[in-house]
C-alpha cells in the first residue's frame, strides 16, 4: 500500500513539471499547436492542391495530330477530328495544328508520287511525338494514326503530363464516337441493350462511413501525436535537467525519489495525452467541414461513448510511452543527445502502430497483448464501432487494457530505476547510437 504522502508528493511534482513543460515554447508547439492545426492545414493544402491540379489540367491546351496515314484513311479520320473538335470546346485541345496536318497528311491530290512521298516524309518527321520535355520542340503531344483499314494507333509519351493528358482526351473522344456509332447502327441508345442492369446501394449511414474513415487513419495519428507530445518533455526532465543543472536540485527534494520520478513521468504522459486530445479536437473541428467539400456522404463525429472507451486505452498507452521514452532519455546528458536517441526510439512506437492501417487486422487475443499494436488496433475497433459498445470485441479489448496497464506499470518501474541510477558519463551504447562520444567526468 502506497502511503498518501507519496501520492501527494508525486502529484505536486507532476503539477510543477506539467506547468513548467507547457511554459516551454517548443513543448507548446509540438504538444498543443501542431496536433491541433495539423488536420485543418493538411486538408486545406490537399484541397487547394487538388483544385489547382484540376484547374490546371482543365485549362491546359494540348496538341493532338490526327494523321490519315494512307489513301482512303481521311474518311475515317474526319469524324475523329470532328469528335476531337467537339471535345475542344470543353477540354481545350489545340485543333488548328492537326487540321492543317490532316489536310496535308496522306493525300495525293496532285497525283505526283514523288511529291507525295516527299510531303509524307516531311510530315512524318513533323508528326513524331515529343519524347522528352523540350518546350521548344516541334510536334504534337500525341499522334493518332488512322489507317484506311484496321487498328488506330495512339502514340504518346507517358513520362510527360501533357502527353498523358492528350492521350486521355483522345480516349474520351473515341469512346464517345464509338458509343455514337453503336447507337446509330442499333437505332436506339446502347444502354437499352444492357442485359443485366444493377444499382449499388450503400447501406452504411453517413456516420458509419465517417467512423470507418476515422478508424483507418486516426489510431496511427493518435500514436504518432502522443509520441510527438511526449518527446520534448521526456528529454527535458532528463537530459534537459542535467544540462540546466537542475537535476541535483530535483534529487534533493525532501520526498521519496520514486514519487519524484513518478510525478515527472506522469507529467510526460500528460503531455502525450494533451497532444492526443488536441489532435482529436483538431480533426473534429476541421475534418468534417473540409471533407464535406469533397463529399456529402461522410459524417465525421466522435460519439461520447467512443471517446470514453478510448480514454483508458490512451492513458495506459501514454504512461507506457512516457516511461519508455524517459527511461531511454535518462541515459543521456545533453538535450542534443537526448533528441538524437529518442529520434530512433520513437520509431519503436510509430512503426508498430502502422498495423492499425492494415486491412483485415482485428483485435484478437493474440493482437491484444502485443505492445503498441494492441492499443492501436483497439483504438481502431472502438472508432469503427462508432459508439455502439455491442459491436466491440469485449474480451480482447479488456485483455488489451489489462496488458497495457501492466506494461505501463512495468515501464514506470524500469524508468524510475533508470532515472535514479548513478552514472559517470554517457554509457557506450548511447554514445554509439547518438554518434556522440562518452564524456569524461
Amino acid at each position: 500500500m502506497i502511503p498518501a504522502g507519496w501520492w501527494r508528493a508525486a502529484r505536486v511534482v507532476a503539477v510543477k513539471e506539467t506547468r513548467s513543460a507547457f511554459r516551454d515554447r517548443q513543448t507548446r508547439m509540438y504538444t498543443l499547436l501542431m496536433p491541433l492545426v495539423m488536420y485543418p492545414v493538411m486538408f486545406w493544402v490537399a484541397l487547394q492542391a487538388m483544385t489547382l491540379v484540376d484547374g490546371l489540367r482543365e485549362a491546359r491546351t494540348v496538341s493532338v495530330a490526327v494523321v490519315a496515314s494512307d489513301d482512303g484513311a481521311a474518311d475515317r479520320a474526319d469524324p475523329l477530328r470532328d469528335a476531337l473538335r467537339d471535345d475542344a470546346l470543353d477540354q481545350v485541345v489545340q485543333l488548328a495544328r492537326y487540321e492543317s496536318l490532316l489536310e496535308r497528311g496522306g493525300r495525293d491530290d496532285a497525283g505526283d508520287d514523288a511529291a507525295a512521298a516527299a510531303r509524307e516524309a516531311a510530315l512524318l518527321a513533323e508528326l513524331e511525338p515529343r519524347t522528352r520535355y523540350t518546350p521548344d520542340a516541334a510536334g504534337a503531344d500525341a499522334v493518332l494514326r488512322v489507317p484506311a483499314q484496321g487498328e488506330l494507333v495512339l502514340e504518346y509519351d507517358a513520362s510527360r503530363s501533357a502527353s498523358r493528358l492528350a492521350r486521355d482526351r483522345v480516349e474520351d473522344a473515341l469512346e464517345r464516337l464509338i458509343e455514337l456509332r453503336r447507337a446509330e447502327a442499333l437505332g436506339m441508345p446502347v444502354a437499352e441493350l444492357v442485359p443485366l442492369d444493377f444499382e449499388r446501394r450503400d447501406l452504411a449511414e453517413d456516420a458509419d462511413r465517417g467512423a470507418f474513415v476515422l478508424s483507418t487513419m486516426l489510431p496511427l495519428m493518435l500514436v504518432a501525436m502522443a509520441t510527438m507530445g511526449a518527446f520534448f518533455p521526456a528529454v527535458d526532465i532528463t537530459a534537459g535537467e542535467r544540462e540546466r543543472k537542475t537535476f541535483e536540485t530535483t534529487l534533493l527534494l525532501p520526498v521519496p525519489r520514486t514519487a519524484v520520478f513518478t510525478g515527472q513521468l506522469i507529467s510526460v504522459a500528460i503531455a502525450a495525452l494533451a497532444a492526443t486530445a488536441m489532435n482529436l479536437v483538431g480533426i473534429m473541428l476541421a475534418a468534417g467541414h473540409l471533407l464535406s467539400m469533397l463529399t456529402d456522404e461522410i459524417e465525421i463525429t466522435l460519439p461520447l461513448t467512443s471517446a470514453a472507451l478510448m480514454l483508458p486505452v490512451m492513458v495506459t498507452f501514454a504512461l507506457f510511452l512516457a516511461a519508455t521514452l524517459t527511461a531511454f532519455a535518462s541515459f543521456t546528458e545533453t538535450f542534443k543527445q537526448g533528441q538524437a536517441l529518442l529520434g530512433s526510439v520513437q520509431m519503436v512506437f510509430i512503426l508498430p502502430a502502422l498495423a492499425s492501417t492494415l486491412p483485415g487486422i482485428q483485435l484478437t487475443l493474440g493482437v491484444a497483448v502485443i505492445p503498441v499494436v494492441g492499443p492501436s488496433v483497439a483504438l481502431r475497433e472502438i472508432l469503427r464501432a462508432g459508439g455502439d459498445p455491442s459491436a466491440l470485441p469485449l474480451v480482447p479489448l479488456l485483455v488489451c487494457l489489462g496488458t497495457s496497464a501492466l506494461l505501463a506499470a512495468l515501464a514506470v518501474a524500469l524508468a524510475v530505476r533508470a532515472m535514479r541510477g548513478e552514472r559517470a558519463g554517457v554509457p557506450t551504447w548511447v554514445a554509439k547510437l547518438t554518434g556522440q562520444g562518452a564524456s569524461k567526468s
Partner: protein
Amino acid sequence: MSTNDASNKDGTAAVVTRALTKRYAHPVEGEVRALNGLDIECRYGEIFGLLGPNGAGKSTTLRILATTLRPSSGTALVDGVDVTEDPDEVRRRIGFLSATTGLYPRLDARETLRYFGTLHGLSGRALEDRVEELIETFSMTGFATQRCEQLSSGQKQRVNIARAVFHDPDVLILDEPTTGLDILGTSEMIEFIHSRRDGRRCVLFSTHVLSEAERLCDRIGIIYGGDLLGVGTLDELRARTGEHWLEDVFRAMVTEAGHESARMGTDA
C-alpha cells in the same frame, strides 16, 4: 520550522562519516576511486570547512551526505540519520547548496519557494507566510514574480539560498558555494554562512579558496586524493605543520602525505 527542536546540541556530532568510500565505473576512465575510507565528524554549533583541490573528493563527500550519491562502503550519519538507511529523512533535515543546484528556469522565485515548501509538508497559510518571510529576508520582493531564467546571478543566488533554508535546517551543506559568484555575491554568501553560526546548527562547506576557510571555519578538514589528511582548528593545523599561512599548511600536509604513501609503498 526546524526539523529538530533540540536547542542545546552545541558540541555534539551533527555529521559523522566512518570509513566512507566511493568508487564508480566510468565508461572511459574505468574504475575511479573518489573516496578512500573517510572519517570526519562535524558538530552542531560549528562551521566545518572541507578544504582541498579539485578532484580531492570534497564534492563526492558532500553529495553522499546529501544523499545524491550512494557510498560504496562505510557509514554516514547526518543529524543522527543514516544516509543509506533513510535518505528521505536526511533530505528533510538538511539544506544543500552548490554551484550545480540550479533553479528551475520556468518557475518564478515565489513558485520555486512554494514548490519546495509544499514538498516539505507545508500548505495554506503557513506555506504562504513562510514564502513571504523568505522573500522579505532575502530582499527578493522586486523579482519574486520573475522567472528564474530571467534573474541575474546574484538574484538566483538569493532564491537558491532561500530554497535551501526554507525549512530552517539544522545541518547546512554547501559545496563550493562561492564558485561562479562575483565579489558582491561572494561577500553575501560569506555573510550568509556567518549568519548560520549558532549553537543549534552545523554548517559543512567545501572550498578550495583558502581565504574563505581561514575566515569562516571553526575547524578545517584537509582532503586530498580521496583521503583526509588532517582535521583541526586553524591553530591546531599550524601547530602540527609549523606553518603559519593556510596555503603553506595545506602544502605541508600534502607533502607529508605524499612522503607517507611513498614510504608505505617502499615498505610494502
